[in-house]
């Protein structure tokens, strides 16, 4: 039944093969539900195709006025400026979030905390240097 529903919908917008047409005709003959569905689709399509639309009076005047008053930057330039603004705002938001995180973790906001040097003591540096010397004595006799 699903297949015949698909064929029914397809029949409104494209040519069916002879086999599909035969299948649909038989299905419509044998199913009231399918006939109702066809009727509903026809109603809907008629409803939609009967819609007229227009802009408010003076539309062409508004277009011409806008043509005179708007800057002549190309749409590409206008789009790039818009993209740049979004990227800049996102970047700023990321930087602010980073700074807040540093402050929450280290309780301070200075150059050392920004470079992750707050837990690095001078003693630690000396110990690292001694270890390096030991290493060199072992490897480089």
């Amino acid at each position: 039944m699903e297949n015949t529903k698909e064929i029914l919908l397809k029949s409104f917008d494209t040519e069916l093969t002879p086999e599909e047409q035969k299948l649909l005709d038989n299905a419509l003959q044998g199913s009231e539900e399918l006939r109702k569905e066809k009727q509903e689709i026809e109603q809907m399509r008629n409803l939609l195709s009967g819609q007229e639309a227009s802009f408010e009076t003076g539309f062409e005047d508004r277009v011409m006025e806008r043509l005179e008053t708007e800057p002549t930057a190309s749409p590409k330039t206008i789009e790039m400026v818009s993209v740049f603004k979004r990227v800049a705002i996102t970047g700023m938001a990321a930087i602010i979030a980073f700074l807040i995180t540093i402050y929450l973790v280290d309780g301070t906001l200075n150059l050392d905390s920004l470079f992750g040097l707050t837990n690095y003591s001078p003693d630690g540096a000396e110990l690292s240097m001694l270890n390096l010397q030991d290493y060199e004595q072992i490897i480089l006799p």
Partner: protein
Amino acid sequence: MIKQPLRKESIPYSEDKALVEAVKSGDKTAFRQIVLKYDKLIAGVVKGMIGNNGADDVGQETFIRFYRSVDQYKGEAGLGTYLVRIAVNLTLNEIKKRNRKRWYSLEDDLNINREAEDNYRRMEKSELINKAMAKLDPEFRSVVVLRLMQGYSTKETAKILQIPLGTVLSRLARGQGKLREILKKLGYIHNE
């Protein structure tokens, strides 16, 4: 069983060609004539996709964009088709913008329930169709508007939207299915 809805575009190609050439040489009167000839077509497409709210702005932008990039128009597609393509793209951008803002929007979604039904019945038919269309995903909406409202063939619809024919047919099927359910609940389609 193929039924072709009435096409709105029936402007002679040679006349359009002359108008476009005039616009290319800076003739704004010719441009105004183009606006007057195609405003209803563009209104049908734009309002079909986003309703009345903001349609005028998108419509204006369609013609402005055409004017600013008229040198890019080489005449492969009919002028109306070319303008419709611009209108569809701008409308889809507008829909994306509105979806991003929805977080902050207080606009209620169309909520079809027993209490609302009577209210919706009192609405004008076109307004109701617009609201029902707003429930469709933009990709389904565009094929429904072009094929069922504007009367473009499935091939023309595929060309305008630059998608395969098979995709048009499948989106049409799904779009119609959903739209039918919505309109049925609102009593605008029923079994006789």
